[in-house]
C-alpha cells in the first residue's frame, strides 16, 4: 500500500519541480541577462551567469532617464492605490451596512461594469479628458482609475457582511459614531481582505500600460512599463538594458508577493467565488 504511494509522490514532486522551474525561468533569465556585460551576452548561453557581473546595462538605462520613470511610477501607483482603497472601503461599507433607496440597483450597476473592456472606454475617456483640459496631466492620468473600482468594492462588501452586526451595535451603544465604528471595529477585523485588495490594486496600477500610453505624452509623466517598451523601440533591441528595466519593474511586485503571499493565496481563492 505504501510503495505505490511513494512513487506517486515522487512523480508529483518531479512534475511540480518542472512546473515551478518553467514558472520562474523568465524571472531567472531577467536577472542573469540584466547583469551581463555586452561581450558576455554573446559568449554565454542565456541561462549561464556572466562572470563577473556587470552593471553596465543599468548605467545605460539610468543615463536615459529611467530613474525619473521609477519615481513617477512609484508616486502614481501610491496615489491611485490609496484613493482606490479608501473610496472602495467607503462604498463597500455603505453597500454592506446601510440601507437606503436604490442601494441594490446601484450595486448591480457597479457589478455589471466589470464586463466592460477597458479598451472600449479608452476613446470616450480620452475625449472627456480632452474636454476637461486634462490630457497629459497628472489628474488625467490618475482620476479615471482612482475613484471607482467595482471589483474591490465587491470583495470588501462580501467581507464586511460576514462581520457580525452585533459587534457594531455594541460599539454604537457605547456611544461610537458610524465613522468610529468603521475605523475601530470593522477595519481591524478586515485586515486580510484589505491586504488583498491593496495588493491587487498595486499590481494593476504598477503594470498599467494602455491608459498612460494614451493620456500622457511628456517625458516627466512617463511610467515604468511605457519606459521599458519605448526603450526597446528607441535604441533598437538592447536586451541587456531591457532586462535591467524589466528587473526593476518586477522587484517591487515580488517583494510585495513574498510579504503578503499567504493572505493573497488564501483570500483570492476564497473570496473570488462568492
Amino acid at each position, binding site marked *: 500500500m505504501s510503495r505505490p504511494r511513494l512513487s506517486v*509522490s515522487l512523480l508529483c*514532486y518531479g*512534475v*511540480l519541480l518542472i512546473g515551478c522551474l518553467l*514558472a520562474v525561468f*523568465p*524571472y531567472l*533569465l531577467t536577472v542573469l541577462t540584466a547583469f551581463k556585460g555586452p561581450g558576455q*551576452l554573446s559568449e554565454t548561453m*542565456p541561462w549561464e551567469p556572466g562572470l563577473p557581473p556587470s552593471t553596465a546595462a543599468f548605467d545605460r538605462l539610468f543615463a536615459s532617464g529611467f530613474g525619473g520613470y521609477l519615481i513617477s511610477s512609484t508616486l502614481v501607483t501610491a496615489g491611485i492605490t490609496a484613493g482606490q482603497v479608501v*473610496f472602495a472601503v467607503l462604498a463597500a*461599507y*455603505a453597500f454592506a451596512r*446601510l*440601507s*437606503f*433607496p436604490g*442601494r441594490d440597483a446601484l450595486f448591480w*450597476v*457597479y457589478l455589471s*461594469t466589470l*464586463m*466592460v*473592456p477597458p*479598451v*472600449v*472606454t*479608452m*476613446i*470616450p475617456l480620452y*475625449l*472627456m479628458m480632452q474636454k476637461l483640459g486634462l490630457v497629459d496631466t497628472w489628474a488625467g492620468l490618475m482620476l*479615471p*482609475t482612482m*475613484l*471607482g*473600482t*467595482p471589483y474591490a468594492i465587491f470583495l470588501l462588501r462580501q467581507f464586511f457582511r460576514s462581520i457580525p452586526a452585533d459587534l457594531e451595535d455594541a460599539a454604537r451603544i457605547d456611544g461610537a459614531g458610524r465613522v468610529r465604528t468603521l475605523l475601530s471595529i470593522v477595519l481591524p477585523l478586515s485586515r486580510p481582505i484589505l491586504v488583498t485588495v491593496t495588493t491587487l490594486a498595486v499590481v494593476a496600477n504598477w*503594470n498599467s*500600460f*494602455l491608459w498612460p500610453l494614451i493620456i500622457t505624452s511628456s517625458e516627466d509623466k512617463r511610467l*515604468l*512599463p511605457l519606459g521599458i*517598451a519605448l526603450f*526597446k523601440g528607441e535604441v533598437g533591441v538592447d*536586451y541587456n538594458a*531591457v*532586462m535591467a528595466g*524589466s528587473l526593476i*519593474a*518586477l522587484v517591487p*511586485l*515580488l517583494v*510585495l*508577493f513574498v510579504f503578503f*503571499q499567504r493572505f*493573497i493565496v488564501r483570500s483570492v*481563492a476564497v473570496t*473570488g*467565488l462568492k
Partner: protein
Amino acid sequence: MLKPATRPVRRTQRRQQTLAGYALLAPSLVGVLGFLLAPVVIVIVLSLFDWKLLATPEFVGLANYRELLGDGEVWHSFLVTGYYVLICVPGTTILSLLLALLVDRKLRGMKYFRALLVIPWMATPVAMGLVWAWIFDPGQGALNQFLGIFGVNGPAWLSSELLAMPSVAAVHIWQFAGYNMLFFLAGLQNIPASLREASSLDGASPVAHFFGITLPLLRPTLLFVLITNVIGSFQAFDTIFVMTEGGPGDSTEVATYLIYDEAFRKFDFGYAATISVLLFAVILAVTVAQFAYFERRTTYDQS
C-alpha cells in the same frame, strides 16, 4: 404609548442613513457612472459619427457599421482574436485544473510549490512580454539555444505567421495558469473528504472519481474561471503590443490592437468606436452564452 414616539425617530434615522449612504458612495459614483458606464454610452453614440482628428464630427447614422461589414481587416482581427481566445482559454483552464489536482495533495513543502506557481501572475505584462520575446529570439534566445543542444534548429518563433500567435498565447497561459490554479484549489478543498472515501470504498478508479464526482462539483469554479479568462483574453493588448505589434503581417492583430491603431494612430475616433461596440457585443454575447449553457446544464442535472 411607544409607537407615536418612535415613528419620527425612525424616519430621521432612515433619512440619516440615506444621506450617509450617498455621502459614502459619492466618490465611487463619480468613478463608476462617470468613467465606466458613461463611456459605454458615449462609445455607442460616437459610432454613429464620422469623426477624424481636427475635423468637425459629422452624424452619419449607420454608415460606420456598413463600412465595418465590408472591411476585411476588421473581420480578420476578430478571427485572430477568436483564435487567440481558443488557444488561451482551454490551455489555461486545463493546465490550471491539472496543477490544482497536483498541489491539492498533502505533501511536504506544498505551500512553496503553490507560491512559486502563482508568481508569473505578478509579472508586469510589458516587462514579461519583452523577456519572452528574448526567449523566443531565433539566434540568441534561450529556447532555440536549448533546442540546439539536441541538434534541433529552432524556428524564428515570432516572425513566422504560423507560429507567432501560438507563441504569444503560450505567454498568456504561462502568466495565468498558476493564478487560476488557486480558484480550482479552493473548489477542490470545498469538496467534503467523505465523498472521496465513499467512492474509493465503492472501488471507483481515480479517473472515474474525477469525472463522476470532482468535476461536477467544480462546476461553479469552472464557470468562474472560464468567464474571467474569456473576458481577459478577448482584451489582450500589452503583451502583443511589445512582442509582435500585431505582426508578422497581420497574423497577431487582435481586435484591441486594431481599435488602438484606428483611434490613436490614425485618429479615426468614429470608426474605432464602431469596432469597440462590436467587440463589446461579442464579449457580452459569449459571456451570456456561457452563463446560459451552465445554467441549463445545472438545472438539467437536478431534475
